[in-house]
């Protein structure tokens, strides 16, 4: 077992770190755009009786 797996890190988390470091090492003109992929956004809208109950960002 790898050290990171033993520390409770999954391959998805490993992949996230690896992708972030690769983005950080890009040439300046590419890095700005690439950095936007660091964060992801999820919007939740609970539905009740066939219509959105309230919106939460």
């Amino acid at each position, binding site marked *: 077992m790898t*050290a*990171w797996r*033993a*520390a*409770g*890190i999954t*391959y998805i988390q*490993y*992949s*996230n*770190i*690896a*992708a972030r*470091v*690769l*983005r*950080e*090492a*890009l*040439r*300046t003109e*590419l*890095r700005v755009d*690439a950095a936007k*992929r660091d964060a992801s956004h999820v919007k939740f809208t609970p539905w009740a009786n066939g219509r959105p109950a309230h919106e939460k960002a």
Partner: protein
Amino acid sequence: MSIVKNARLLAARGARLAQNRSYSDEMKLTFAAANKTFYDAAVVRQIDVPSFSGSFGILAKHVPTLAVLKPGVVQVLENDGKLIKFFVSSGSVTVNDDSSVQVLAEEAHNVEDIDVNEARQLLAKYQSQLSSAGDDKAKAQAAIAVEVAEALVKAAE
């Protein structure tokens, strides 16, 4: 064992199995990442990939395989003999029965797009983060970053 030798061995094994399997003489590569699609079912000659089960080369008639990608350089030898190098962060590689290959990465870029000085600075930054990390988890996270930065420096030099 060298990548080329490894690839030849596997290809020879594939050729023997070809009699009772539906192998194709052409290898179709699909190579995509979240940021870009590099090849879409393009016919190529050879692909070298870094994986957790070792780096290996893929030629047409390769045995069907699944592997998990390691941060490193994917080399694609195109049909016209042009060799192109990409850096992949992580992901998966699938080799199918019909000689189609899928390389799916979270992030992938041409090796030329890596800034060597930036990579060296990152390596130093994460090495100091590793030595000052408190718990096992922080240590493991920094160690992953160091591993990737080392591979980046090696690939870009």
